[in-house]
């Protein structure tokens, strides 16, 4: 990863890769050039296989496994420790961001800073600005529209924290984005340093100019979008629908399970109540109650798992599709700008030299945008596949676990009834 490739050139190509292009493998040099930190043009300055990262950090949280890639991570970021801050104007939450790295452009190997959501948002904007056709992992939503969730509810904060953690780690894993100066400053700067850095950068007017150009371009539209980007567009459209559906279905399952749990909770106490009227049946009834109570606890845990594991990931990928659409749009705009200038050239008589130069630049820009997008698209597809596969496998595993635990509960009930029966004079009871 440190050599700057976006695509893992070592990946088996049994199936047609989703990148839809065979040329990417030759593009290594281009990527190196555009990495903001120049020390990375020479891939040899850092041994790609150097594993000096503190082992403890590896165990602290789950990594997304990309099987084909060797574990060459040299920057580890954790987000934890949410704290509430109250000022005269507002109340907000900050998170601790801990960085451990061996990269040489970092002065130290460990950093600890506190950041709030706004800061993450700023980082995302800067990254998208600098790399319009790279796919930046989504941030958790600014507001939760569901209505019931308080901003400072514990579950909400926990979920947000995890999403922010993932956001930063995805950037840290990205060969290009992780080299970003803004990223470095985000991870290392003290609060006042960050604030002052934020004020720099293109001024308001320049940013407005960008926006105007972007709007103009999108109004113009693209003439000849390359087929591969049409395919990507179609895919993103469908994928978006599927993710949204899965998100909704999962939410519904959680809801239904909670309602089921509420009703189930009444069973145990009813059996206990019954046991109060009986003599011979006291033990079996009490045991029934015990079993049902245990099953309730297992179900509770299962519901929680679903909410903590599968649902956030599905939600992330719903947000991803918005990012993807934006990236495609930006690429389109670049193409539109190029096409427009090209057309304008045809009608111009004078000053064509300067214009031609401009057009060349735009063409380069377009080619670069297309290539980075294609490369990152392949990368994104891979990690999407890994993420969703892991999430569904995890869900299936948890469900199996749940049933196994309930099975054990009922089997122990049967066993205890049989033991009692054998102490009586009944013969064999078969298990059916």
């Amino acid at each position, binding site marked *: 990863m440190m050599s700057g490739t976006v695509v893992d050139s070592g990946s088996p190509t049994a199936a047609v890769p989703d990148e839809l292009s065979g040329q990417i493998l030759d593009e290594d040099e281009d990527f190196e050039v555009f990495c903001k930190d120049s020390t990375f043009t020479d891939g040899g300055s850092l041994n790609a296989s150097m594993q000096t990262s503190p082992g403890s950090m590896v165990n602290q949280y789950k990594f997304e496994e990309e099987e084909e890639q060797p574990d060459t991570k040299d920057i580890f970021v954790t987000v934890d420790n949410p704290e509430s801050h109250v000022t005269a104007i507002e109340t907000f939450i900050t998170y601790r961001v801990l960085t451990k790295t061996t990269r040489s452009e970092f002065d130290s190997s460990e950093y600890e800073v506190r950041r709030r959501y706004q800061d993450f948002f700023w980082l995302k904007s800067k990254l998208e600005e600098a790399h319009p056709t790279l796919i930046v992992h989504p941030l958790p939503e600014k507001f939760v529209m569901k209505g019931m969730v308080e901003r400072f509810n514990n579950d909400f904060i926990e979920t947000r924290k995890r999403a922010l953690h993932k956001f930063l780690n995805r950037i840290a894993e990205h060969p290009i984005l992780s080299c970003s100066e803004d990223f470095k400053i985000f991870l290392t700067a003290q609060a006042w340093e960050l604030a002052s850095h934020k004020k720099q950068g293109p001024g308001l007017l320049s940013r407005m100019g960008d926006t105007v150009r972007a709007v103009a371009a999108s109004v113009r539209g693209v003439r000849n979008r390359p087929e591969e980007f049409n395919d990507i567009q179609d895919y993103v459209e469908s994928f978006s629908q599927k993710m949204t559906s899965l998100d909704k279905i999962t939410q519904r399952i959680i809801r239904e399970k909670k309602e089921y749990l509420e009703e189930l909770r*009444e069973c145990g106490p*009813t059996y206990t*109540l019954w046991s109060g009227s009986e003599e011979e049946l006291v033990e079996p*009834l009490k045991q029934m109650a015990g079993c049902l109570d245990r099953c309730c606890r297992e179900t509770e845990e299962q519901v929680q798992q679903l909410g903590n594991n599968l649902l956030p990931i599905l939600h992330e990928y719903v947000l991803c599709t918005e990012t993807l659409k934006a990236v495609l749009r930006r690429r389109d705009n670049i193409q539109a700008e190029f096409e427009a200038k090209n057309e304008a050239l045809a009608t111009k008589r004078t000053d064509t030299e300067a214009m031609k130069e401009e057009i060349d630049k735009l063409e380069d820009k377009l080619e670069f945008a297309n290539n980075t997008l294609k490369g990152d698209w392949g990368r994104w597809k891979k990690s999407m596949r890994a993420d969703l596969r892991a999430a569904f*496998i995890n869900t*299936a595993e948890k469900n199996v676990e749940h049933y196994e635990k309930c099975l054990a509960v009922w089997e122990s009930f049967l066993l205890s009834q049989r033991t009692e029966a054998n102490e009586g004079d*009944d013969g064999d009871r078969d298990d059916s």
Partner: protein
Amino acid sequence: MMADTGSEEIAVIGNTDLTPSELENNIKNTMVEKGATLLKRMEINVAEAEKRTGKNAVSMQETYTVYLIETRAVDPSSEGANPAPPDSLWRRYSEFELLRNYLLVTYSFVVVPPLPEKRAEFVWHKLSADNMDPDFVERRRVGLENFLLRVASHPVLSNDKIFYSFLTQEQGWKEVVFETGFQAKSDSRLKALNATFRVKNPDKRFAEMKHYGDELQSVISQLLRVRARVADRLYGVYKVHGNYGRVFSEWSAIEREMGDGLQSAGHHMDAYAASVDDILEEEEHYADQLKEYLFYTEALRAVCRKHELCQFELEMAAQDLTSKKQQREELATGTVRTFSLKGMTSKLFGQETPEQREAKIKTLESQIEEGEEMVKDKNAESEEFVKNAWVDIERFREQKDRDLKEALISYAIMQISMCKKGIQVWSNAKECFSKM
């Protein structure tokens, strides 16, 4: 489903629709009975149900269901050889009710087995509450068979001639029942209620039993209600997973490498969603077992009420006797110890003549004689009732403990089966997800 048999002979339950676990339950739920029960000599099953239309009592068209009762003599010597074809006749629910009412009145000391419910109660949304619904009819068929088997294996009830002809005599059975005049013997609700309030010294055991019956009824009702709601919710949970199936399938169409894994995972999600139907049908069986005992509590209470009535009548007779004896004494000695209207009127309007007094005393003497007979009879009746009823209540109690324990065990077995299915489906799904 009950089969009470003695020693080694096991009455063959002809209904092959029983699941293996039900069959096992039947054979295991045996009890050594005193005296031969009908079930030892005869196979009984309610084989089918059919819709009929006909004119009812007010000459209006109605649709009703009839049930085919098959009987066959059990002949141990012919085992192995082809059994003779069974005799059969059709009966409708109302005839079963008539039979039961007859038994209730005639054997008031017996906890008479209940009929399956007339109308579906404690339903959860998928179950129809419609009496014509095939599932309801099927469950009722099973319940009616259970009723017949219970009666046929009861040491007292199984010997009843009316019961026997219910099983064997298609025509004219109703007339035979009415001829017994049992309806005249039945106690009115009001009479029974009156006794319950005013009885002074009922046997404590019966009072406790009645109280137990109330508690059992209350708790089983609650359990059935909760269970129905749980079933409803569980159905929802499973069915929503079917949506996963649909979306996985659609999603697999746009994926290349992930497609196969998704597609097959989707099938497992569909299977999971479908599996809840069987699960809940089995649970219905458990609910039916509970319902039987819910309805049994009414029969139990009926026996206790009958005791109260007997006791009350005894107390009334004794009280009447005492008061008559007192009157005699007053007449004999001339003293008025108790206030009575007669006493007052005689004071007001003058004493009676010695002849009148003699006549009165004579009447009283014969009344007292009758009264003493009455008290003796009532006492004997009451004692007899208490003895017989208590025997049956003990029998019922043991049966109940056995049956309900079995029911709990079969519920656990069901849960285990459900968990195993779940493990299988999700393990398969996990396999498929790994291929994504």
